Structure formats: structure tokens, C-alpha cells
């Protein structure tokens, strides 16, 4: 079925009309399964003030399988690798069709607030995070300043 499932339409509508604070998600004009997402770095986190660009894609099997999400903005985070891939259980094994785009993005935002170096994706970052958390946090702040804060 080439047409969009009703659920996706519903979700999209709600994302636009009733956005989650600190998160925007808007579907691409030419592919309604592709979303441009921004997530504000949580305050009290090294990513505060940063606006992180992500892309989100809903596979054909959605909602039976999870959406595919990736950071476009460079980020220094133990669970996010250089390519922007995210290590998050709900995006993998713990996906349930009861979850939605909204909940997934909230989970990602939460992940920014609570990095988990014990279940790393970017091993080098996790290493540094474990060895010198302060330094890692400052690097994360630096990167945020450098890549995620708009200059104007």
C-alpha cells in the first residue's frame, strides 16, 4: 500500500499541532516518511543551548518495527557514534508498536541528559567519559558550542 497508514498521518499531525517542548519534527515535502528533527539539548546537560539536527525515517514496516533515527549534527556522546547513529534500546530490541515518534524523540532527548557510557556505541568517547568525566563534559560542551549553536 503506497498510501500512508493512518497512524503516521495522525502522528505527524500531532507533532506539528502539538509539539513536544524542545523538539520539532516536520515531514519532508517529498517523502512523508522522512522527518527533519531538531532536539534542544537539555538544560543542565553539556548539550544545553545546542540545537541538534536529526533525521528520522519510518520504514514500511512501521509501526511493527522502530523508526530509523540518526544525528546529523556532530555530537560528543558515548551512545552516539561519529555517523550519528544512536544506541537506544527502544530503537532496537525494545521497540514496541505502542511507541511513537514522539516517545522515541523524547527518549533521545533523555539520552542526551543521561549518557550511559556503560553501554557505549562510540567506544572512544565512552572510554574518555569513563576516565575523565569532567573533561568529557567540557569537550561535549565545546562540540555543542562548535556544531550545535547557531552563530546568528
Amino acid at each position, binding site marked *: 500500500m503506497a*498510501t500512508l497508514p*493512518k*497512524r503516521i498521518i495522525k502522528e505527524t499531525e500531532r507533532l506539528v499541532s502539538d509539539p513536544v517542548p524542545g523538539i520539532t519534527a516536520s515531514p519532508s515535502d517529498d517523502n512523508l516518511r522522512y522527518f527533519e528533527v531538531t532536539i534542544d539539548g537539555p538544560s543542565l546537560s553539556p548539550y544545553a543551548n545546542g540545537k541538534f539536527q536529526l533525521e528520522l525515517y519510518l520504514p514500511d514496516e512501521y509501526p511493527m*518495527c522502530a523508526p530509523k533515527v540518526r544525528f546529523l549534527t556532530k555530537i560528543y556522546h558515548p551512545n552516539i557514534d561519529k555517523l550519528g547513529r544512536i544506541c537506544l534500546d527502544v530503537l*532496537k*530490541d525494545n521497540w*514496541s508498536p*505502542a511507541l511513537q515518534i514522539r516517545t522515541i524523540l523524547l527518549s533521545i532527548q533523555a539520552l542526551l541528559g543521561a549518557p550511559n557510557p556503560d553501554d557505549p556505541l562510540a567506544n572512544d568517547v565512552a572510554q574518555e567519559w569513563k576516565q575523565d568525566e569532567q573533561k568529557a563534559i567540557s569537550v561535549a560542551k565545546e562540540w555543542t558550542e562548535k556544531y550545535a549553536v547557531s552563530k546568528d
Partner: protein
Amino acid sequence: MVVKRRFFGRNKKSENILPQLVKTSPPPSPSIENSLFVPDNDYESDEDNVNEKESELIVVDRPDIKSPPTVSNKSIRQELFETQLTSIIGHVSLKHLHYLYKKYDIPNNQSHSLKLAINEYLNGISSNDMDEFYAKEDIKSESTTNKSSVKRSFNQLSFPSQSKPQPEIKPEPIISTPTTTIQEPTWKRFIGSLDVQAWATRPTLRPLNYQQSLQLRRLVPKNSSILNSSIIRIFHNDREIGRIPEDLTRILSPLIDFNFISFEVIVLESTLRRLSIGDSFLIHINIYVNNIAFDYKDDDVDVKKSLDSISPIPKKAKFNNFNFSTESKNESILRLRQFAISKLFDKLGIRPLKTSPSSIVNAESIDTEFEDSNDLPDSQTINLDSDDDGEVVEIEDDENETTGVDEVNLDQLKQFYQQNNESNLLNSLPDTTTPPPDNFKLDLRPYQKIGLSWMILREGEPSVLKKLSNDAYNDDDIGNSQDNDGIMNPLWRKYKWPENIEDKSGNDSSEQHIPYFYANLYNGELSLEKPIIKTTKTGGILADEMGLGKTISTLALINSIPYDLSNEFTSSITLSQDSSFNVNKPYASKTTLIIVPMSLLTQWKNEFDKANNNPNHYCQIYYGNNNNNLIHTLIHHSPNKIPVVILTTYGTIQNEYIKLKNTKSSQNVYDSKTGIYAVNYFRIILDEGHNIRNRNTKTAKSIYELYSKKKWILTGTPIINKLDDLYSLIKFLKLEPWSNFSYWKTFITLPFEQKQFSQALDIIKSILDPILLRRTKDMKQADGKPLIELPEKEIVIEQIKFNQTELKLYNWLKSRANKTFKEGLKTGQILRQYTQILTHILRLRQVCCHMDLVGGPSEMDEEEQQQKDQEKSSLFVDDDDESDTKTFLSGVKQSQELQQKADYFANDTEVRETMYKLYSKVDLIDSECSICTTSPISLGELVVTPCGHSFCVTCLMEHIEFQTTNPVNTNGHDSLCPNCRFSISKYKLFRLRNNKTVTSKDIKFHTRAQTEQDGNDPSKDYTFQLYLYNPDKVSSKIQALFNHLKFLKEQSPQEKVIVFSQFSSYLDIIESELKLQLGEFEFRILKFDGRLSMQDREKVLIKFNEPSLNKFTVLLLSLKSGGVGLNLTQASRAYMMDPWWSPSIEDQAIDRIHRIGQNNTVKVVRFIMENSIEIKMLKIQERKKQIGEAVGVEEEERRKRRIEEIKILFEE
């Protein structure tokens, strides 16, 4: 003497019978010819005398016309002998002729032998004489004559009386030669010549010389009339010298009487000596047609009028004491002329140019065609046994006559419609015609404008057309060309003037140079001009195919010519002249009466209001109750409130007709002063005009009694099944002369019954061409685009996987089928096991649909059923077959349960405990399926997990299926609840059903028998009931269908769809599943199959076409009963649940929705089970498309193909 005569006696009875026989049997024979044109009156009276004298005598034999000897065996001498003999003594039976010839033919002394023969004949020939003679003859030579059949037969009507001399031998009663009283022809033209053997009636003084000129003169006995005498004598210098054969005189005498022909007669061969009575001599007759024959031209096809105008002679006072006998004067004249002309043509070998009346023949083909027959006139000799092609066509009037069995088959209808499609007239009509915008505010499509142009022309208003088409219509161009290219009257044939090699007339009038002439052999008319069918321009038949806008075209016409334009000036004259008008009635010159079927009444009213732009015009519906007002409304309306249209129904008219008939039995209906019959209308339009196709129905009769100036019929199907259907329409249109049933019957019904299809259809075509306009949806516009573009049609094959249970059953059945098939192949007895194999195939197909169909009382397709019946003798299908299947099925389940115990509830107690707890957790109103976000979930959709979460059943099943096939992380369990990650199994789900709507039958169908209710069941406190869901009972196909339906419903909640299946029982299952799973609140489910009565079918269709009231409508339609005829364009989507052997059946089914009136893209999904017999059926469909359907194929070939098909089915 008397004793001898006994063998020739007749009885009176037979004489009385014969004339009737003659009238009703057109096939010609010499004796019939005689009876129609009895030579002389005194002749007849003589016979009567003889008859009376001999009435005591016994009848021996009836004349046997067809008996031997045959013509081909005759020598020229014999022929000569016979013609001479008959010319003297009148008609002699063939047997006698043969006998006399054999006996008296003495070489070199013809006149003597003739004399002897005549003597014997006049003395009477006894059978004894003949037998004796033939007995001798047999010894002498082998006689070809059959002795026994030669006996005693003779032709009574020409029986000569020996007591009286031949009238020819004493020509005293002759009083005049009629030709002298008639105007002289202004020109004449050679038409042919004859070489004739003549006989002297008087001795001549000297021998006749070669090239000596003679005259032919017509003689009429005193006490006879020209109508029943046919005496022609050869004169030389005003002295009668001889006679010509009687069959020729019969042909020529009427023509002489009418002054149609003149002659040049010369002696062909000098006679050696002077002639004595009975001597023969040869003459050559050049025959010329006088202009008078052409001047008495009838008014085209209007034969009726011709009957009145044809008689040129009776105007002379001399002949006013006609013997009227049984037929009217005009009829006799017509008949004589017809007979004479057609026989003359026959004798002269004049053949029509081979043209179908409609096609225009080019010059070359005419010439070659003629050359073939050109040799004939010279070599033509007079032959007594000439065939009678142009025999009088009998016309019978017969209101009581039952209509013939002239069922029109499909091909003929196609041909007929095709022909009417080909009219190229339309291309010349302007497509810019627009009704005056003051009256009409809708836009017409180009072809509708052409149609309007045509209709305006058909009403004879070219000036209106010119105005409305912005002068695109040019009178001169189109009007004339139309007339020139008009269709030749089919009763006429085109002839080429023969060349006169020896033409000495030297007549150089302009008529001499016209190469062709035309003749109507049905009534003997001749014409120099091409007889075009002229029809009075008062309407016609608009037979556009359904959906092309007949209604709107008609309204455009009404608005273009709303009133009778001529009324103001000439109404009174027109009225009195027009025979279809009743002078005594007021004329509603501004009103069109439209008669429609009841169901279309409001639609017409709405259409009128939509189109009407003139505030002074209005449309009134007439129900028959406001009788007294109607006449007032129609005649005395105010100028700003004009009832241009009166709408009424066939039923209303019919009721009024019956009422009038009953109350005023003495009066005619059209004398009515009130009601619908009280006025003449300007125009009457019959919608769905085939309603009057049976002319004997009250409906038709009531319609005939309405009078109007213009008449139109709208119908998509002018012929339903008989050609006579058309007659009634013609009758309503009062299209002369065809509205006279005799004509119709003679020229159309009878030829058609006699399988002369092309003749009948040609005539019909020529009748209809000018008055019928038919466009079909496939026709192209001038720019090459079709008139109507049907929307796209998408057919998608969706392949579906079997679920586990289905697969197991399928494979099991398949292996059994394979076994049978292979055995059959091995033993070569595949045909004997055909039935069994078919049964296996059927099983396999059923599994593809739904497992419950297997072994159930499912209907087989007809062919299979027949096959089964045929081969019942060799039938050895094991009766255990079905029970086997069932056993296997339960076996499948048990094995599954054993294997995956964790997926099932351990026992019923567990089921019940779990289920009862769940009741409180179900919240119908606030339920939301977290998978598809639908909220609330409909009752039929809802499924509850043991952990108490509700989902749509399809969503959850999809989820479970996905998790099973993509085991990412399930911790040993196949699937988890999306909401709480509790382990779930598809065998541990509960579904809901409405306590009220679901019958116990449905419950049993879906529950396992063990889960019966007990005291703890809380369901009585709820509006719903929970039950354990058994996913294996569900057919994959039905599930796929439901997914489609649900998805579609989300997008367009009021959509109407059609679900086709060939198994009625499958439709039943789908129906109950639909009710259970999708619920009847949002889904309207209709079912239409062969088990419905006609009324119920209609009800279903009406319901289906109603607006859907926010409901999604599903029509379950059986492929066979719903495949043809229905118009279901309300739906644009169809689902084919199972494939059928023949692709055309499926195509036809799809055409129910893909046809005119369909505005949306048609989408069809064909569900096919993966790797199943259905895939192979698709192959067979493909094959059938290539080699064609086995329609015209022999049974043997059919079987062969079937076996091949079976092989395809079983190949891996």
C-alpha cells in the same frame, strides 16, 4: 365418353380449396400461376358446367406438379411440341404432355403429330391408354418415366372443355384493342427482345417471309374485362394470323393495357408454305418500355398511395364495368403490374445490378456485373417451366397473427448496431450547435451537439440549426448532399438499360442516354431516378448507448425548439393535412409530452430544472389525477408560464387508457375530452422507448393513441431480442409504410424467418438509417478521441501466503490429488478419473479460499457438476473423502497443540478464568489500539490480550506475525504485548461480539465447542461477549480482504466496494466474518447471489445504489449471477476473491463497475494464494486468452484442452 372422362373428374371440394391454398403459398408453380391469372371468364363458366355434369364422378387424383419428367431431360423437339400443344389446348399436365409427346411425336411431320395429340387429349386420356402405351414403350426403349406416377393426374383449372371449342379459335367476342384509347408515349426505349414460337390461328394466304413485320394486338372479349383476359394476337395487316404462348400473353397483356410497353415484331424465319391453323412460326419481338411506365411513378415507398394512383385505364369510361371479384380493383391492378413487370424482366433476363441497397456502386463493377447477364436476352427461349422468382408477394393483414420466432442472435444484433454506427452523415453535421442560452444553461459535449444538430434536422428545422450553430450548418451543402446520397429504397433494384443492337427507333430524347433505371419488383414500379427513401421529418430514435446523455440531448432539443414554429401561421392547415393529428382536439403547440418509466420521473424533473434557464418555462408532472386541469394548463396558459414539458409515466398513460376504454366503450380513446388524451401535443418523447416493444401490450396501445406533431424515442436498446421489437417503435413514429404491419412482416419478419438475414437487415438499415442515431462509448470523435473516456482500470494481483494450518491441509490434499493424477496418467485413464481429479482440484481451490469450504456443501461450478453427472457411471470417488479431510484437519490441530503447548491455554478452565477477568478491563468507548492509534476500536475489531490490553485484531496479528518472522529479541517468547511486553500468543487472544446481534450459529462457528458458558460468566452484565479467538479458522484471504477494507474505510468512509466470489458458501462465510470482525455499524453488508429471488435482487441493488449514510458498503456478489448486466458504477473498487477458469468471466464481472457512468479510477484486487493451484489457474487463463475460448469448439477438442489444462495444473 363419360366413362373415359371419369379419370379427369374432380370434385367440387378440391376446387374450393385450391384458391385458398394458392393465396397463402407464394412458392410458384405453373398451376398456381394459372389460378391467379385465369385466362377468360367464359372459360371458367364452361368448366363449372362440366363440373356440374360430372359432379357424381369420383375424384381420382390431385394434380402432382413436381412429378417427372424433368425439364433437363427434354429435347428441344419435345419442348417445341409441348409448347405448341399447350398453346392450343391450354395448360396440360406434364405427365400428359410427356405421354402425348411420346405417342405422337412423328419426326418431320410436326403439325400432323400435333393434330393427333390434340385429338387424343380432347377426347380424354385414360390411364389405361397411358399404361398400355407405356407398357409398349418400355419394351421398345428404356423409359425414364415412372409408370405409376404418370397415372391420371391433370391440372384442373386449365382443364379444357371438349364440349366447347377453344375460345382462341373463335375470336368473335373481341371488341377492341385497349391501347388505342391511351395517350401516345412520348418516348420509348428498348429493353429486350424475345424469340418466340407462335402458332397460326388462321390460315395465311401466303408464307411468312423473313423480317416481315407483324403486330401484336391486345384483344378483350366482350363479356370480359381487361383484368382477367390476356389474349394477344399476332396481326398482319390488320388480319389476325396467330397467337403467342399463353404464359407470355399473361405477362404482356397487362403491360399493353397500361401502355407500358410497345413492340416491334418481325418474322424470324420464313415459313416454307402458307400457314394453316396450328402451324408454328418463329417471331422476334423487340420490346420497348414507354415513358408512361415511368411516368406512373409512385410516391417512393408509399405504396399505399400508389394503389390509389396507379390505375391509368379505369379512368376511361369504357372499362368501368370491371369484374371486381374478390380482390379490389386496385389490388388486382397492382398485382397484375407487379406480375407482369417481374415476369417480363425474368423473361428478358434483366437482372438487377448487384448492389446492396445502401452501398454506392462504382461504375466498373456495374459494367462487369452486367456483362455476365448480358448474354441472356439473346439466347432466351420461352420455357414453360420457367422459374418464378418474382412471384407476387403475399401480403396478409393479421392483427391476430402471432409474432414469429425471429429471435435475433447476438451476432446479428452486433452487425445491426455496427451498421448503424457507420453512418457518415454525422461527420457533416456541425458540432457547434448550442441551444439558446436563454432557455438552456448546461454545456453540451461535442458529440451531443452533433446529436442536437441531427435532432433539429430530423424535426425539419434547418433554419433553426443554422441559427444555433452559428452558421456552421449550411443548408445547401449538407441538405442537398444528404438527399443525393440518400439511401435507395431497399425494395428497388438498379438496372442497366440493355443495348439495342438493332435499334431502329432513332429516338434521341434525353431519356435515351440515362444508363440506368430502377424497378421495384415488389409492386412493378419503374423509375429513372434513384428512389430515395424520403421520410417525413417528424422525429426519430435516439439510441445512444447508456451514459452518453440522451436525456440532456433531448432537453437541449426541447429548449432549442420549444414550440411549434409553424403554429402561428399554418396550424390549421397542418393539422388537417397531417393524418396523425386529430383535428377535433386542441393543439398544445408549446408542450412536449415526455413519457418515462416511474423510476426516472424525478430524475427527469431534476434534469429539466437543472437545464432550464427560461423563467417562463416550466415542467409539470402529470399523475393522471388532475384530469380536468390538464387541458386548461396546456392550452390556456399565460404567456409567462408555459408548460413546455409535461412529464408522465407509462403507467399513468396506460391507466387512463384502460379507464377510457372501459367507461366509454363505444367511443374511441382519442375522443376523450379530458386527461392526457384530450390534446394534440407538439412533441412526444418516449424515454426507455423499448417499453413499448411489444405492440400488443396495453402500454404500447395506449401510447399509439397519443397524437403529436413530432415524435421521439429514446432507448439504448432498440432491439431487445426480436426484430419485431423495432416494429412497435416504428409504429409509434408512424413511419409509413413500415408502420403497416403487413409491410413490416413481408419485408422484414418473413425474410428473417427464412434466414435471409442480410436482406432483412438491409431493409431495416435503410429504414433506420435516416431516423436512428446511435453512438456507442467506443466511437471516436472527429479528433480521434473516444466519445467517452472511461477512467483507468488498475488490476492488481495480490499474492497471499497460506497460514500454517492452511498450508498443511493444502499440501495434504495436493499430495492426494497428485496421486490420483499420476495413477490416471499411468493407466491412461485420466478421463475416467476426470471427475475425481476435478473434485481434488475443487478441494484445492477451496482451501485457498477458506478451509471450511472443503467438504462443505459448496457449490461446484456448473461444468464440473455436469461432468460429474455425465460420468456418474464410472464414478468412484470415495465417499470417505470428506470425512477423511475432516479427520485430517483435526489431526493437524492436535499435532500443533502438542508441539507448541505454551502457545495454548492448558485447558478450558484456564480459558474461562482468564476470560472472565478480562471483562472489566475492556473499555469499548475509550479503547485505543496503540498500534494503529485507532480510537475507539470497533467491537468487532477489538481483541484483548490476557494482560488486558486491547488492540485491533488485524494490528495485533500483524504485530505477532512480524515478531515471529523477525525474532529480534523475544527472550524465548515469540511475541510480546506492545503495551506491557507481557508474552502473548495468537492462540490466547479474546475477541468480542455483540450480545444482541450475533446468533448462536455464528458463535459456534467461531468458538471451540468447549468454551460453553457457565454460571460465572459475567457476560450478561455487559453488552458484549468475549470468546477465544481461533486464528487458524481464519482464512488468510479473508484477512487480506479485511485489511484492504479497513484501510480503505479509513480513507473514504463512504466507499462502496464489491467482493466477487464464485462460491456462494464462501460469500456466506465472508458475510458472517464481516459482521463479526468489522461490525455492522460502520459496514453495510449486502449480498447478491443466485439464491435470491428477482425481487430480492432488485432490493439489494436499490440499497446498493442508495446514498450510503456514512456507512462503508460492501456488496458480496456471486461471480455467476452478478457477472452480467448489472450496472454497479457506484463502486469503483472490486475484490476478486478467487480466480475463475475463464478470464472473460472475470473481465465481465469487472465491467460491472468499469463502464459508462464510472467517474473514478477502477481498482481491482485479485487475491491469489502463493504457490497454489490458483497461480496455475492464472496460467490457464493466460493460455485461454491466447488460444481463445472454447466456444465454437467440438466436444472432443474441448476435452482435449481440458486434459491439457489439468496437466498444467499438476505440473510442478
